[in-house]
Each structure stands twice: as C-alpha cells, then as structure tokens.
C-alpha cells in the first residue's frame, strides 16, 4: 500500500478524534449518556444545513447546534423528564429536521452521505488543524477536570460534600461532547459519532481495573480502530467512516469474547 498524503491526513485526523473520544466515551458509558450522545450528534445535521444556508463554516454550525441540543437535553433532564423517551424524540427529530432542511439547499443533496457517514479521506490540512485543536481542547478539559468529573460521576452528593460543583462538571461534559461532535463529523459522520464514543469505551471496560486505565485503553482501541478501518477501506474500497466503526465493533467482540474464553480456560484449570 502506498502511504499517500491523504491517507496520512486521514489517519492523523482519526487518531486525534480518538484522543478526545476515548476519555469522553468513558463518561458517556459511566453516566449512561449513550442516547444523549446520539441526540447531540444527530443535531449536527441540522447544524450542517444552517451552516450551508448562512455560509458559515460547517464546524461552527455543528458546534453551535450540538451545544444547543446538549444544553436543551441537560435542562430537560434537570426538570425530571423521562430521559429515555425525551432523548429518543429529540435525537430523531433533530436528524429528520436536519435532513429536511438540507433538502431545501440546492446542490447539497449529493454530499449528504459525507455528513451522515463522514468523509475522512478528503480531510485537508486546514481541516486537520481544526480537528487537532478541537480534540486537544476536549482532551485538555478531560485531564484538567478529571478528578471532579469522576467524583461527580460516582456520586454528585459526595462530590458536593467535597466542595466540587457537580453542575459545573455536567456543563464541562456537555461542552466536551459538542466539541467532539463538531470535530468527529468529518471523520465518522453524524450517524456514527456516538458509536466512536461508546464502542471503544465498552471494549476497554472488559480489561480495565481502574477508571484511568479504562480511559487510556479506550483511546488506544479507538485509535487502532481508526487505523484498521482505514486499512479495510483501502483494501476493500468500503466507506471509511463505517469501516472504522466496524473495526471498533470487531475489537469489542474480540474483547468480550476473549475475556469469556479466558474465564472458561481459567475455570477449567482451577
């Protein structure tokens, strides 16, 4: 395989997104925010439509709508709405509304799959810079707020008693999620961003013995999935975004299956 410039850029973009998605994905798993991630990511399509309509950058458009959706969802959660149903309604409404809005814009329809499933192979150097900056910001937020974030995740009461502010930590997560959606849109697309958060973290859970180990392992698995997915895409000419998520899913299956096998073997031996 020839390591072309565009493959290098794609790999870099994917690995940078993995750096953000690993730790953030762990919080999504621990706080049971899977649907929350979905709703935020689906709102990105609406952001694409708005960005194209008002000719601002796609990154800015998706960042703003994702942030808006995340804030609305957190506010509703605070008021005691049944989150399962509310998130389902919001996630699919945002996606449908976004698709309808995009259809009004001439000449975009053909590109729609790029926003739904990502277009990592066309990442240019300026875009790479934006993805890098966004991912670095998310990773920095996670590292900076790690202890209070984790304390608030384990128990908001204990965090509060210790002088942390759980409400502020929730806001940090919302901001990080919106940023991740905005940078990951190009890599795996709106439909599969939540998968990039969820699957590596879930696979890491099987072997991790501490929250920190789980976050590091999730980053590693996400990065490996990006590289394996890109290779798959090159070899078989499959769409890159879904190939990356397929690779992550394979890691998850291997991880769960491997752990089961290990228990079986150890059980026989002992």
């Amino acid at each position, binding site marked *: 395989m020839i390591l072309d410039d565009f493959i290098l850029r794609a790999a870099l973009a994917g690995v940078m997104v993995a750096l953000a998605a690993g730790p953030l994905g762990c919080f999504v*798993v*621990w*706080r*049971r925010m899977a649907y929350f991630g979905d709703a935020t990511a689906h709102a990105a399509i609406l952001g694409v439509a708005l960005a194209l309509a008002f000719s601002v950058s796609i990154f800015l458009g998706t960042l703003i709508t994702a942030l808006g959706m995340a804030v609305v969802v957190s506010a509703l959660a605070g008021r005691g709405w049944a989150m399962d149903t509310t998130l389902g309604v919001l996630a699919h409404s945002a996606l449908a509304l976004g698709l309808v809005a995009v259809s009004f814009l001439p000449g975009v329809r053909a590109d729609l799959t790029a926003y739904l499933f990502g277009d990592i192979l066309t990442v240019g150097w300026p875009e790479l810079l934006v993805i890098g900056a966004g991912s670095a910001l998310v990773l920095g937020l996670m590292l900076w707020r790690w*202890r209070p974030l*984790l*304390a608030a*995740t*384990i*128990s908001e*009461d*204990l*965090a*509060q*008693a*210790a*002088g*942390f502010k759980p409400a502020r930590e929730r806001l940090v997560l919302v901001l990080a999620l919106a940023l991740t959606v905005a940078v990951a849109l190009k890599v795996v697309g709106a439909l599969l961003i939540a998968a990039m958060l969820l699957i590596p973290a*879930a696979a890491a*859970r099987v072997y*991790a*013995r*501490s*929250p920190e*180990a*789980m976050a590091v392992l999730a980053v590693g698995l996400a990065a490996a999935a990006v590289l394996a997915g890109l290779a798959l895409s090159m070899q078989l000419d499959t769409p890159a975004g879904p190939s990356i998520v397929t690779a992550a899913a394979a890691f998850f299956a291997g991880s769960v299956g491997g752990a089961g096998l290990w228990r079986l073997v150890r059980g026989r031996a002992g």
Partner: protein
Amino acid sequence: MSAAAVTEIAPAGAALIRAEGLSVAYGPAAPILHDIDFTMRAGEIVTVVGPNGAGKSTFLRALLGMIAPGTGRVWRAPGLRLGYVPQRLHLDSNLPLSVARFLRLVQPLSRETVQALLERVGVPGLADRPMAALSGGQFQRVLLAQALAGQPQLLVLDEPTQGLDQPGVAAFYRLIEDLRRDMGCAVLSVSHDLHVVMSASDRVICLNGHICCEGTPTVVSNAPEYRALFGLGTQGALALYQHHHDHDHDRPGKNSHFCDHDHSEAEGARHDP
C-alpha cells in the same frame, strides 16, 4: 464512657453550620421542613431522629448545600471540611473502581494513608478489592473511610446503621465515638430509630417537619431492664432518648404538622422494629 462525661468536654466549640428559619419545599406542596433553627458546633455529636418522611435526609442535604432552602438561610463556616456518608451509593457496573481509588475520590492519597484509613475503620487489606465485591458492612465502612480521607471537621452520616443488626449498630457507634475522640471532628448523624441512639450523643434532635424536641440521651447500659433487652455486648454504645415535646400534637389544626410517631416512653423502650 458515659454521655455525661462526653457532654462536659464537648460544648463551647465554634459554630460549623448554622440554620436560621430554614424551610424546604419540593414544588408547591406543603414544606418538608419548616422553621428550623439549628447550630452545629465543633466537636459535638448530634443525632437527628424522626419517623420516615420526617425530612431527616432533606435536613442534612439542606445543611450541606445540596438543596437550596425555600426560606431562611444556612451558614457554613468558610473552608469547612466535610465528610459525608450517604444513605446509599449506587455504583455503575461499567465503572471499574477499586477501594483505594474510591478513597482517592476527592484528593490524592499515598498507599500508606489508604491502608491506615482502612485499618482505622476496621477493614484492613481491602485496598485492591473492587468496590463491587464488598459486602454491605464492608461497603459501609469504606464509605466512612472515604469521608475521613479529607480529615473532616464535621462528619455527616445519613442513616449509617441501616441494615446492621444490634451488635453491628453498637460496634459502628463505638467506632464513631473513637473517631470523634481521636480526630476531634463533630458528628451529625441521622437515624430512623426514634428511641435508641448513640450514647455519646451530646444532643438528640427529634425532627418531624420541624424540630419537635431536643435533649440529651439517657444512657441505658447500666439499667438491668435494658441490658436484658439489648444484651451486654453493646458496651454502653446505645442510649435511650426520651421525647419531651413542648407543644401539643393532639391539635393538628394548630400546628401545621402531625407527629405520627409514638411518644410514650414505655413503648419506646421496647424499640420499634
């Protein structure tokens, strides 16, 4: 150790938390708590008793700033170090957490400190155990160790003896008493047991929407009838609280609450299940 001896050394501490005219309501319903005036002082042990639904947990949460007061105000000493043991703690099974990591929830701790804390609460050697693998009693003590990790000036316990049998309750109370003696921290705890409280309590507060009455507990360890009831194994850790209400509960129209618990002391000595 008798309650009287503890009372002599405890008072005259600086105020740690003060509530004035505190009331808390969830939505437009009648307030859960109303007209609460309360001061927690350094070094004292205060036990709050009251029936289910009396607002005991709400009281603690309002004092700790976890819920905003409806009216009145809550003052906390600036820089107050709090240790909080919640009534329940649900841990997500997807979060891998060892006992040592849980104790490091709020601040980094050395390996030695973690081991010393666990030893202090009577569960040495659990440091590397996953939290999910602990028994109920071990979990309770690890929660206590976490609360002690920040060297609190005030230890707040929400129904800490729930699910423990009588010897377990006595042992837990003795531990709290020792901790207060060694660390000098004040202890504010809540119990749904209306009559049997920690004998080291300087004050017992009977709460049912408001503060019905407060006073010192009567030590029961030497009275033969209570020895018969609780056995000899409690070593004076348990005491009896006699309720003295200064208002009439037979006219609910006059007071905006009902004390639906039993105030007769003879009944109380028999210990509610």
